[in-house]
């Protein structure tokens, strides 16, 4: 006789996730609607408690935590290099970028940042940018799906499949890679990767133009997204919003340029910003458009990386991607905050090392989606319910990162 796992009680949900609003503090004619956690437009498991007056949304209260794994507690109980698989599972759409940020932070703490061979850095940037394109593809495709455009989703998923196969070829996994290690890489690139990647880039360029024609400049899409969810620049900065959302509000701020980490200073790319071409600066259309343009910039970066990997930093027979991987990771006692540009914004890691163990005393991830979501109640006052779906989609949330 197996014991019952869960004892159902009608009060459980009210005790664990109580609603913020109740019948007492509603005005006449208002009602509470729960959107999510199963609603497809909430990108995973986000519950929105909406106070509506007919079709108008008066107030939005996000409830999160459905995917909370307490990554920070896990990180305190294992060595630095074993945290990387957990870092992958935070923003599972762009795991390479997470790993890149994390590995960079630990390397800087150890002071071995300068010993990393250039080839490794170029490979890191290459895979991170490939993953950035994949992440933006999911963002744009699912955003179209939220609003009701089916075809772009299939198109970007088809192209993302090629990206996934390229990344699978490098490290054997399709989503959670564990490829970038502290002090190096798991493997060198497979033989012939550069040629295949060049082929793919040449295939991708016209596809990006197609996507732009099909979705971004589509009149129906513009009607649904222009002038919706306008985020002014000062509000965005005050809310700590970063990444494509901040750039769509008209600020040219990209950590790849500002901090200039890894080999980004040697690469030539532009930073697209929202201009309010079809509506107001900082609306949903601008956010999608910025993501679209970032895909093009990433293609540029990948081309330059491939040129370097075929030229100055060619594959040699004696090249060991794990040459500088430290045997024992034991940083000096220090506080360290590292930040990097993820597809969704500024991903920060805070480390507190005590100097005695090879485990972080405290490891905190500053997740970009978490902060970007906090601006949602501000954006969605007095909008229509169908526009709320458009606004939530334009934030490009990945709940694995919001809840960590």
């Amino acid at each position: 006789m197996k014991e019952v796992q869960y004892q159902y009680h009608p009060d459980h949900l009210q005790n664990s996730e109580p609603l913020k609003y109740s019948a007492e503090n509603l005005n006449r004619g208002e009602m509470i609607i729960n959107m999510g956690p199963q609603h497809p437009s909430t990108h995973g498991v986000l519950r929105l408690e909406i106070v509506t007056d007919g079709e108008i949304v008066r107030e939005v209260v996000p409830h999160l935590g459905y995917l909370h794994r307490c990554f920070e507690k896990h990180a305190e109980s294992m060595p630095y290099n074993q945290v990387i698989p957990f870092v992958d599972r935070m923003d599972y759409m762009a795991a390479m970028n997470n790993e890149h940020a994390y590995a960079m932070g630990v390397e800087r703490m150890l002071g071995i940042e300068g010993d990393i061979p250039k080839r490794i850095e170029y490979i890191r940037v290459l895979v991170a940018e490939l993953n950035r394109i994949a992440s933006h593809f999911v963002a744009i495709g699912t955003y179209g799906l939220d609003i009701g455009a089916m075809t772009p989703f299939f198109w970007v998923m088809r192209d993302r499949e090629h990206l996934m196969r390229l990344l699978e070829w490098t490290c054997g996994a399709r989503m959670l890679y564990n490829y970038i290690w502290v002090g190096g890489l798991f493997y060198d690139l497979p033989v012939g990767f550069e040629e295949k990647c060049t082929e793919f880039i040449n295939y991708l360029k016209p596809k990006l133009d197609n996507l732009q024609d099909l979705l971004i400049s589509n009149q129906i899409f513009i009607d649904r997204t222009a002038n919706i969810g306008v985020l002014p620049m000062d509000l965005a900065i005050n809310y700590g919003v970063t990444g494509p959302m901040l750039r769509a509000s008209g600020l040219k701020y990209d950590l790849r340029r500002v901090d200039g980490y890894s080999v980004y200073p040697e690469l030539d790319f532009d930073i697209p910003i929202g201009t309010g071409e079809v509506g107001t600066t900082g609306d949903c259309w601008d956010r999608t458009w910025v993501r679209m343009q970032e895909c093009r910039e990433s293609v540029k970066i990948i081309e330059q990386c491939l040129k370097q990997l075929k030229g100055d930093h060619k594959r040699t027979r004696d090249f060991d991607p794990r040459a500088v991987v430290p045997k024992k990771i034991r940083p000096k006692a220090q506080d360290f905050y590292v930040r990097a540009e993820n597809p969704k914004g500024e991903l920060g890691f805070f480390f507190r090392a005590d100097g005695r163990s090879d485990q972080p005393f405290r490891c905190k991830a500053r997740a970009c989606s978490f902060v970007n979501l906090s601006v949602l109640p501000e954006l969605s006052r007095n909008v229509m319910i169908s526009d709320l779906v458009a606004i939530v989609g334009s934030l490009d949330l990945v709940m694995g990162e919001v809840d960590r």
Partner: protein
Amino acid sequence: MTPQALKSLLEAEISELVLTEREQSTPVAFVVPVDRLKEVMIFLHQDSRCYFDMLSCLTGVDLGKEANQMEVIYHLNSIPKGMSIAVVVQLERENPVVVTVSDIWRTADWHERETYDLLGIRFEGHPDLRRILLPNDWEGHPLRKDYKEQEYYHGMKVEY
């Protein structure tokens, strides 16, 4: 502006303020007395010479039973000046209370809720201090060093 210049600026502008610079910290960290935090933060946010307009990260750290201390670390970032600093406040472990900064940077609202949720640090004057990641009836604060998870939660075994 160098961190030293910033430190002397703060000490000149705010009367009777004693800042200590934290060794071994990236970016440079200043330890601020708990009761003066609000003044310092308002100055850092408003003054045209500093203008830290973005709060990147807010971290709570539990230093364990022996030290009997908790810390809250604010990572500030100035976009126009391109500076980053960290501000640290130290709290007692029994009753960790610190004044909120969510009226200066709105982003601190959720960060503080998360810190309250996982470490039990209370923020005075916070508009809506509820748990954010864990359910409301969860017992304890997981990131404390002496955390023991509860045995059963709604009839489910917590230990796997």
